């Protein structure tokens, strides 16, 4: 029996970012606000992290709301209709449902249905993972246009009174539309994971722990034994990190990955217009700049000072601000690198929209 040859979709030679959008929620949390919850000072926080304020979302603003705001701006700048999207990807770790995805709801709101829609769980590397996916989908001809959104409401998963990570975090969303291009607009992705450091950043407990503890607490309440109720007061899972381990990995290992992203793109630091690392901590950014020996001519994104660490949203938010403040960078090359819980990382050189 002869097997017919499968037809393949026509491929696109190259892809690029054709539209960019941002959503910054309007609650501003200052270091003095933070110091009501932890024993610290404005000076200490600025010195250790470079953070001055964070934007956080009001209770009635969801991850999907913020994603929608950023996505609409990106679509407008790209000059395409949502109905032309061949895929909708949302990178997030704070959409509060294991299922259904934030992306499916977002696609529907935008009018992109029936585009395939899915979420990526890659924490602070989520946006770069999304770019890697979108680039591959467009070049393979699987989709003509792909929406990638990094959206986080980290304020829902923090404990204001702990001091390893909560005070760093903010909320927001950034989005890009990736489409076909005549020239290369996205370099090869350098991405990966190191699950041996699974415990370095993560939630205080699993959903199953929450289920079991809440059942036990209800039973103890009914039996008049209130001891467990005390224990489950902080039932809600929140984020923690081992700051030293993460700092060392971020500075040391991630500078190497960023260097690799330059090499596989066939460029050097001198060719860059901008460096847009995940906005985790100003000290990490400063150290990476040193390790990469970036020349003075490279503009470094430092959105963290006002925005805090917004996980998957930090790179597109920082890119959006960079282009607003330095429109002449448009068309130049930017090195972007995301890294975070998993541990996971992703980096690529892109042409700025």
């Amino acid at each position, binding site marked *: 029996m002869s097997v017919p040859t499968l037809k393949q979709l026509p491929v696109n030679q190259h892809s690029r970012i054709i539209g960019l959008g941002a959503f910054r929620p309007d609650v501003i949390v200052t270091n003095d606000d933070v110091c009501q919850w932890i024993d610290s000072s404005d000076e200490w926080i600025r*010195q*250790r992290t470079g953070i001055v304020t964070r934007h956080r979302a009001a209770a009635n603003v969801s991850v999907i709301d913020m994603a929608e705001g950023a996505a609409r701006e990106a679509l407008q700048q790209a000059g395409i209709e949502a109905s032309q999207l061949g895929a909708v990807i949302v990178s997030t770790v704070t959409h509060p449902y294991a299922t259904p995805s934030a992306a499916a709801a977002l696609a529907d709101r935008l009018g992109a249905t029936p585009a395939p829609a899915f979420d990526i769980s890659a924490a602070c590397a989520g946006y770069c993972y999304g770019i890697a996916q979108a680039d591959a989908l467009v070049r393979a001809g699987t989709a003509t246009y792909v929406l990638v959104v990094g959206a986080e409401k980290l304020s829902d998963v923090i404990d204001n009174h702990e001091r390893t990570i909560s005070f760093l975090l903010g909320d927001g969303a950034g989005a890009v539309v990736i489409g076909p291009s005549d020239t290369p607009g996205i370099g090869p992705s350098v991405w990966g994971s190191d699950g041996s450091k699974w415990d370095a950043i993560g939630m205080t407990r699993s959903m199953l722990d929450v289920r079991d503890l809440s059942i036990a607490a209800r039973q103890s309440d009914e039996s008049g034994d209130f001891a467990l109720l005390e224990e489950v007061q902080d039932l809600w899972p929140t984020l923690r990190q*081992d*700051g*030293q*381990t993460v*700092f*060392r990995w971020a*500075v*040391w290992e991630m500078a190497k990955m960023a260097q690799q992203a330059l090499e596989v793109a066939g460029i050097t630091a001198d060719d860059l217009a901008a460096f847009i690392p995940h906005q985790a*901590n100003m*000290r990490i950014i400063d*150290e990476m700049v040193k390790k990469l020996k970036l020349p003075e001519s490279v503009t470094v994104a430092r959105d963290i000072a006002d925005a805090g660490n917004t996980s998957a949203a930090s790179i597109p938010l920082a890119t959006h601000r960079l282009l607003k403040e330095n429109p002449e960078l448009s068309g130049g090359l930017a090195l972007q690198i995301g890294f975070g819980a998993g541990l996971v990382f992703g980096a690529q050189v892109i042409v700025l929209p």
Partner: protein
Amino acid sequence: MASNEEILAGLAEIVNEETGLAPESVELDKSFTEDLDIDSISMMTIVVNAEEKFGVRIPDEEVKNLKTVGDAVSFIAGAQA
């Protein structure tokens, strides 16, 4: 392999680069946090740079045992051996 004096001089250079402290103030009996006022983030930066300079591995759990400059010099000397 570096002698203890060379390790101390190398460490002083790294500390100077990170904090701006004069290299001669980096002495064996000085505590990183108490005397040199080095915070945990600077300490990790110093550790990472010392690893590169001396070709040793300083595990995270070891870092908290390095209270003084002398502790760091001894650890690095031992790790090189």
